[in-house]
């Protein structure tokens, strides 16, 4: 049997797949990292696993896309392009796969068409298989990506997002598949994207069978999550009913919310007479032997909530959002309310808002709305900006039904019909001047950016600049293992750290003493390649430390009362992602002042008064606590 390797055309690949006697496996390392380790698995670890993963001869390795590109620069300090370059060196044959959110690319809201095309073109240089989805299954939202992937000669894999409920019939999905094929032509793979791991094996089997019956030549790639512990059942049913490729992951890293272990899938299907074509089982075992040693260093990022969660069939949160949801619950101190949120409120919100697919960014909208409904007291009383956009149809038309009028009234007030009339519907996003953005980035960096830097910047401007500056200051840190990058509590005196730098030079750093100077500075001595170096750090002043430790003093009502006097406070803990006013600017009630981002959702803070901005208390990228001052407005009267 001929191995499918990167560089083959879609026609060649389809030729092999259509004659396959058995099935192929995609190793979804990225989804595993996102679902069970908050996306923190480092390139260092993936490079360790590179050799045996290459040997395993997977259909593809899903190693980029989803939230990983943002987390690469934000939390792992690695260039998402460099990552693919280095992995390619280790894995010359394996096809790399990405997960792209259509018009939302690898982010949380729609990008201008020319940005989408540029980003796809740059990534297509490294990525062979493009899985593309839209959380509303709205095909026009994916069209620009479809076109660019096909233009680049890469393998396009459009998805139908899957969920359960009375609307989610085989007929509906088969029709969707037809709509996709009408746009893309026959030379695609089709993904059934079961990001929640919903439905029973029987349900998945029926769906695959229905699609294959209508489109026998179509190659179906089943993607699921093991949140309820039963994805192997669904995978088995999918393959027995005609799916050709399935997703699974390395067992040493499997947890509760990601894909199930590859070997268990292989063993199960073997009993059914189905072979994982070309798969080297020993290489799969070897990979996990390597990964097992690394897992302890990622413990901090594993879910706070242990155990499988069969109630996913009720709350439907996607595996990729589970870890971060529980993390928010812990940080927000509402872990005790989780049963109520997950099992009562979330399913209710889900149905009320249209029973579409709970996956990024829709899953975040459902989740924040449910949390806010439970924690805020009044249901839909504190709608996020993204919920408003959803209701206005900015993300696309509701596939099954529109939410009830009372929700619109709650969110937009009594004038909701007029607002919906005026602002409703998908907005045409205009192209931006990319050369102007390039100049803006050059100015911020102090030198001309590379095309790849520009692409990263266009997606996440502030985080990209911070990352580029980090790299200038600290070098290419992917060479450091997780035991260093994620160390908590500092190092032991005399501890030695050995590594090979990006250029291949071996180094040794020995940790020396840590002393406090009379001026209150901390002196840290390191022996770098046998030469002593001193690093001086300013201790945080007690004032700063006290301010940071200070709990929020104001409750929601107090914040609302202050706002009426022009003293605008942060209504919740968030990052400031946009500042829309300047000092001395006149504002009217209802004008947007700043935009806050929390839980990936953007919410504008609007003025409640007419007046003049006299002081800005915040800065772009700053983290604010509830009650922190944002803007001071002197009212007109």
């Amino acid at each position, binding site marked *: 049997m001929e191995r499918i390797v990167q560089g083959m055309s879609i026609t060649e690949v389809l030729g092999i797949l259509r004659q396959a006697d058995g099935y192929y496996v995609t190793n979804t390392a990225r989804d595993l990292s996102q679902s069970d380790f908050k996306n*923190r698995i480092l390139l260092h670890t993936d490079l360790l696993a590179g050799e045996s993963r290459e040997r395993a001869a997977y259909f593809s390795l899903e190693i980029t896309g989803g939230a990983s590109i943002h987390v690469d620069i934000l*939390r*792992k*300090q690695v260039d998402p392009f460099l990552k693919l370059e280095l992995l390619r060196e280790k894995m010359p044959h394996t096809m790399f796969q990405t997960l792209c959110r259509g018009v939302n690319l690898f982010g949380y809201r729609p990008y201008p068409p020319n940005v989408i095309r540029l980003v796809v073109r740059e990534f297509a240089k490294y990525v062979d298989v493009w899985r593309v989805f839209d959380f509303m299954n709205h095909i026009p939202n994916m069209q620009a990506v479809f076109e660019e992937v096909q233009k680049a000669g890469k393998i396009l894999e459009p998805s139908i997002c899957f969920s359960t409920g009375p609307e989610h019939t085989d007929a509906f999905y088969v029709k969707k598949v037809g709509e996709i094929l009408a746009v893309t032509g026959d030379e695609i793979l089709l993904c059934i994207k079961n990001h929640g791991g919903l439905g029973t094996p029987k349900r998945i089997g029926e769906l695959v069978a229905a699609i294959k019956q209508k489109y026998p030549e179509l190659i179906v790639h089943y993607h699921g999550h093991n949140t309820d512990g039963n994805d192997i059942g669904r995978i088995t049913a999918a393959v027995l009913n005609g799916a050709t490729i399935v997703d699974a992951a390395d067992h040493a890293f499997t947890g509760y919310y990601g894909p199930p272990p590859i070997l268990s899938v292989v063993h199960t299907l073997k009993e059914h007479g189905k072979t994982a074509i070309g798969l080297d089982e020993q290489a799969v075992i070897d990979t996990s032997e390597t990964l097992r040693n690394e897992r302890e260093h990622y413990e901090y990022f594993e879910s706070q909530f242990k155990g499988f969660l069969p109630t996913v069939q009720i709350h439907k949160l996607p595996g990729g959002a589970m870890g971060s949801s529980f993390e928010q619950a812990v940080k927000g101190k509402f872990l005790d309310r989780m049963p109520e949120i997950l099992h009562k409120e979330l399913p209710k919100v889900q149905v009320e808002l249209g029973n579409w697919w709970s996956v990024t960014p829709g899953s975040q909208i459902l989740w924040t709305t449910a949390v806010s409904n439970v924690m805020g007291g009044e249901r839909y009383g504190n709608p996020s900006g993204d919920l408003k956009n959803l209701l206005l149809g900015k993300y696309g038309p509701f596939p099954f039904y529109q939410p009830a009028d009372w929700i619109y009234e709650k969110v937009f007030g009594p004038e909701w019909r007029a607002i919906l009339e005026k602002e409703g519907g998908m907005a045409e996003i205009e192209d931006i001047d990319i050369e102007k953005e390039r100049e803006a980035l050059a100015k911020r960096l102090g030198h001309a950016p590379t095309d790849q830097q520009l692409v990263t910047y266009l997606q996440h401007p502030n985080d990209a600049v911070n990352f580029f500056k*980090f790299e200038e*200051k*600290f*070098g*290419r*840190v992917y*060479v*450091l293992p997780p035991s*260093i*990058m*994620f*160390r*908590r*509590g*500092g*190092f032991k005196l005399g501890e030695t*750290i050995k*590594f090979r*730098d*990006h*250029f291949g*030079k071996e*180094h040794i*750093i020995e*940790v020396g003493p*840590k002393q406090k100077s009379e001026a209150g500075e*901390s*002196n*840290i001595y*390191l022996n*770098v*390649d046998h*030469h*002593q*170096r*001193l*690093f001086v*750090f300013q201790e945080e002043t007690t004032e700063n430390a006290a301010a940071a430790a200070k709990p929020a003093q104001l409750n929601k009502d107090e914040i609302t009362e202050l706002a009426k006097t022009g003293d605008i406070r942060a209504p919740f803990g968030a990052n400031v992602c946009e500042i829309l006013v300047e000092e001395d600017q006149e504002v009217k009630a209802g004008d947007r002042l700043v935009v806050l981002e929390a839980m990936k959702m953007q919410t504008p803070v609007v003025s409640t008064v007419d007046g003049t901005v006299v002081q800005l208390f915040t800065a772009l990228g700053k983290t604010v606590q509830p009650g922190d001052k944002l803007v001071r407005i002197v009212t007109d009267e």
Partner: protein
Amino acid sequence: MKKKILVANRGEIALRIIRSIQELGYAAVGIYETPDSEALHIRTADEAIWLGDGPRRDYLNIDKVIKAAQKAKADAIHPGYGFLAENPDLSQACEEAGIIFIGPSAEVIRNLGDKVTARRIMQEAGIPLVPGTKDLSRGEAGVEEAKAFAAQYDYPVMLKATAGGGGRGIRRVDNEAQLLAEIPAARSEAKAAFNNDSVYLEKLVINPKHVEVQIIADNFGNTVHLGTRDCSIQRRNQKLVEIAPSLIQDQALIDKICETAVKAAKAANYTNAGTVEFLVDQDMNYFFMEINTRLQVEHTVTEMVTGIDIVRTQIKLALGKQLAFTQDDVKLRGHAIEMRINAEDPQNNFMPEGGKTVSVYRSPGGYGVRLDGFVYQGFTIPEVYDSLLVKLTVFGFSWNETVDRLRRCLKNFVIVGPKTTIPYYLKLIEDPDFRKGDFNTSFLDTHPHLIEYTDQDNEVNKLARLIAEIHFKQENPYAV
């Protein structure tokens, strides 16, 4: 009894002189002010005498220096450069106290220190001079003299303090309005700086090369030169880079300049080591500028290309020996470049970095490398003195080889604590004009981009910084 020589200086030059004293088998006596209590020159000297709390005023106190020499029973005093080196009163006081002053006589220092007297002596000896005036008369008469001079030679002209030196007390004047405004200003500045308000005018030579000649003369009428140096690369008239010999290709011209220097020294009855400075204009005319009556900072480059220890020679001549070599014995070989590595932040207007502790100090080594410094790991740079940390002097057979070696040495230097001029120099020597040896005194003005260097750490030091931060913060603040 073993001879004793007191070194009336501090910093790198004190160490430099102490080395020669000790090599001669003599004892070196150091002096210091309180801020220099931890300075290396005290440790290296055989004895050291505390002068007072300073700062600077005790090093400048002739009485205290003479008393220290008497207390130590020193036979001679070497003044180094700066401080009292060109103060004729020290030479005078030594004479009176029966102590040998290692340098010229008080009269010579006085004559050459006074710009106008010096010009007169040189004019009489037929040395080419930049056209200039005598000391301007006080009041309206002086203004008229100045105007007349400008009318004859044209603007721009230089207004100079008669008692100035080392680049201080000089201002450029481009027109008559400026001239009228600057004369009183220059007078009051000169009065404050040198306690002498005399000023005079000179024609400004545009973008000249600064070429100087090391001369050395014994008390028996023998005067030789040790070839040229080029010190054109200056920042606000302060030398930064010095090379030997001058890169002027016209050997006949160089010979002429050197012969003129010897003639000038003889005309001034010069003894011991000194430097005759010339300006060479773009048409290769040369003009006498001044004679520095002391050891120069940049004497090291001459030592590298001649093989002659100038300080050792100075001491021997002062002690009454005859020059042990003739002009014919002096042979120049190869090239030498010296750079002054200062604790300064070039990107912050060369602000001194005094007060900071040198936490890491690692210097280059190898063939053709010479270091004249005084700092050590753990040394806190006193804020009250100059910012020179170490002079790096490299030697090479060809100019290219010498620049290559210089670059290597600058890269090998590790000084952590204060910011230094090293990254700036690295950028400077990468400049193609520098590499071609094509520079004059306008070099830094015509190459302003040199200041836009980035102080790039190597990869491991960058990573070490992150490890230090993880260690300090107890977790990685960039990967939480």
